[in-house]
């Protein structure tokens, strides 16, 4: 077990970076996803089309390909940002597409009477979405959003491929020195399990707290 205790600081730094990547990506994906879902249900045809195009393009290309395009492709046209920043932006945009679809399903689950009532009261489209529809929609999709959060956590491991030293890359580096892959990667795996366990617990708590009684 010395393999692990000798390298606690490496594992710690990796875990911290994984947590940072995950939290930033989740926050960004929630904002992006809500905006795109709103576009997809808006009465403006151009916005609906743009929202759909966004989801289709982002979802139908693997995340690793997006990361490689952003890290090695964009600098060729003069756009260069740090590896961590680039990874966060790419993961946000990618997970944003999935989040948008989950939120859209939540919006579709809100009875149409709610929207009609909001309009009857004189609320504009934005007001009715913000005050009436979205609060109910988001509450219905806590569980799918929790799944997307766990998927986001797992997907941060792909940032290892473009030079971000998060948990997977840190484990790789420790293994290079110690050549004990089983212990080292099991430890990294336990780290991911603990984090996703936390996400699962948070999801469950929120779901119970926000459940809509119909």
């Amino acid at each position: 077990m010395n393999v692990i205790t000798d390298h606690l600081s490496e594992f710690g730094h990796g875990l911290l970076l994984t947590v940072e990547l995950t939290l930033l990506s989740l926050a960004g994906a929630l904002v992006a996803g809500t905006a795109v879902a709103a576009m997809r249900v808006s009465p403006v045809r151009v916005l609906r089309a743009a929202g759909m195009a966004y989801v289709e393009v982002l979802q139908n290309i693997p995340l690793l390909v997006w990361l490689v395009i952003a890290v090695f492709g964009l600098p060729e046209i003069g756009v260069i940002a740090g590896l961590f920043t680039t990874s966060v932006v790419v993961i946000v945009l990618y997970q944003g597409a999935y989040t948008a679809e989950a939120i859209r399903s939540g919006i579709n689950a809100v009875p149409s009477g709610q929207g009609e009532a909001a309009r009857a009261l004189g609320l504009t489209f934005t007001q009715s979405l913000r005050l009436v529809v979205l609060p109910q929609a988001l509450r219905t999709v806590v569980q799918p959003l929790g799944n997307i959060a766990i998927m986001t956590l797992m997907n941060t491991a792909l940032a290892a491929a473009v030079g971000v030293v998060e948990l997977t890359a840190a484990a790789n580096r420790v293994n290079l020195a110690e050549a004990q892959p089983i212990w080292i990667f099991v430890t990294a795996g336990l780290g991911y399990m603990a984090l996703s366990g936390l996400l699962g617990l948070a999801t469950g708590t929120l779901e119970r707290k926000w459940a809509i009684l119909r």
Partner: protein
Amino acid sequence: MVRTSARKRWAVPVAVAALSLAGLTACSDGDSGSSVPGAAGGGGKQDDLVAAAPVAANLPAGSTMEKIKKRGQLIVGGSLDAPLLSQQNPGTKKVEGLDADFGRLLAKYIIGKPEVKIVNSASETREALLSNGTVDVVFQTYSITPERAKQVAFAGPYYSSGLVIATKKDKTGITSPADLKGKTVIAGANTPAIPAIKKVAPDAKIVTFGTDPECVQALKQGRGDAYVQDEALLLATAKQDPTVKIQGKPFTSDPYGIGLKHGDTQMKQFVNDWLKQIQASGLWARTWKNSIGTVVEGDAPQPPAIGSAPGSE
């Protein structure tokens, strides 16, 4: 959507597929002008090497070598994407390079024929593949270290390499390892460059990428001040790409060993004897000339003394 007849809908993709196949065959026909260094004249020279290779006079009964001979094939853990060391030529499907050549020579020594099957191994899996018997030997820039020697046996070292620093051509101020202090340094993930950089410049920021081409690309795009990699690989890169420059001489010595199953002293002795034979007969130097010698000028270096690296005793 406009309806097209079934025949038309099939015609286009089929034509495209046929054309691309034709293109592929055209490529492999005229493959002599390969851009892969070390591949120059590949096949023929490899066959010369194999023809000159020795065959073991007798194999001890019940030994691992005898089992390999009965099977008729040596199973090697190696890479298919390491230029100059072990890289599959897309045209001929032959694996070329120093490690690949040594694998074939060892197969001939044991079996009498250069029958090798390469199992693509990675630095995470080599120890496991050897200990569970998936592969007989590992030829994969396998640096001998005392930590690794606790899990596998190392014959050799059969080659000694070193790390060098490369920068963009117009970069100044980085000429020795000490200049890496406080800089951002690019290294290949899972290469010995990472601990080596930490040793000479503990406060350098290390950025890693999976493959050598990615590292070179990152260096050219300014994601790091320098790139530390094996000398042979960087020489090949610098030769092809004039915007990359090698700064100074190798600053480490990396003994590559032949990975064997832990505790198989009989086979270790056998492989070491084979290494001594090919070193004495000059075959070692010819193998070097055939791969790394295509980018490094001058004569083959002195091969490292067998058992000299800590962990290979």
